[in-house]
């Protein structure tokens, strides 16, 4: 793999977007940054702006109010980037599937603006930090393989 893809695999900066979660998955994502799981050893930093991010951690099913905003945040993220849908609600809307205020799961909403988005799913309610790390690793590996092939 060329050096840019190597850089992406060794230094994924994450930006956390909560589009309608109950905050359980957000707490587990926060746990990943704590000394017990310490994702900084993989180079993962929590960045303050989506423009700096390589991975969007999306939690929750997309509410109607959040839908254009999630699409805007995705478009603001500098490509190449991956989207990590963390939690059952982000993977498939979970128990809120038929709710009156939902606009779909994040992957459907993001594919409306970018059909070629690289999306990884981490199911669980909430997923354990080990699962989130495993999902991030798999997503990055898939992204690097896709980018190397061109």
């Amino acid at each position, binding site marked *: 793999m060329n050096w840019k893809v190597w850089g992406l695999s060794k230094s994924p900066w994450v930006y956390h977007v909560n589009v309608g979660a109950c905050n359980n998955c957000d707490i587990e994502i926060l746990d990943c940054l704590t000394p017990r799981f310490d994702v900084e050893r993989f180079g993962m930093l929590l960045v303050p702006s989506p423009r700096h991010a390589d991975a969007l951690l999306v939690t929750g099913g997309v509410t*109607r*109010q959040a839908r254009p905003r999630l*699409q*805007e945040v995705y478009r603001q993220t500098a490509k190449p980037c991956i989207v990590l849908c963390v939690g059952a609600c982000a993977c498939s809307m979970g128990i809120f599937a*038929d709710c009156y205020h939902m606009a779909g799961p994040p992957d459907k909403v993001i594919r409306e603006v970018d059909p070629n988005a690289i999306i990884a799913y981490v199911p669980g309610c909430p997923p354990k930090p080990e699962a989130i790390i495993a999902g991030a690793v798999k997503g990055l590996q898939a992204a690097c393989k896709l980018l190397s092939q061109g």
Partner: protein
Amino acid sequence: MKRNQLVQQVKTELADRLADVVERNAKRVYLTVEPEHSLAVNRYLFEHGGRLATATGVDCRDWIEVCYHYCFDPLNVVITVKAKAYKPACELDSVATLFPGANFIEREIQDLLGARFLNHPDPRRLLLADDWPEGVYPLRKDYHHEAHVNTGRAVSPDHGRARVLSALRRG
């Protein structure tokens, strides 16, 4: 003042305003009122030491029942005022004119159930999206879900707002 004293006082002083009084058990008392007396009964309970814990709404077939739950913590009793807001107008006087704590909860009931609170200081939407259609109340029994699923704005209106200086070159 003890609990029994309070309940007795409520029963005697508000006798002409209450439609019904039910003491379900030692800790729960339910007062049913018609909409024109709701503000007076709420004011009475608030001024006699009640703390509005929350307000809830129920969609009964011909009216919307807005229940105000007042906790009297030292007396270990919760008194609930069930005010009926008859359809189709569903109007009640707003309790937020008495104290600001009722502001948000009345906005929420108005948003989701459609009970209109007259003289509310801030009758904006609270929970539903800005582009949710008017007059559609999701928590009513006759709400049809399929007509509203997955509607709403897609991409933001400022389409194409950013300029990309160097496009991604793959491979």
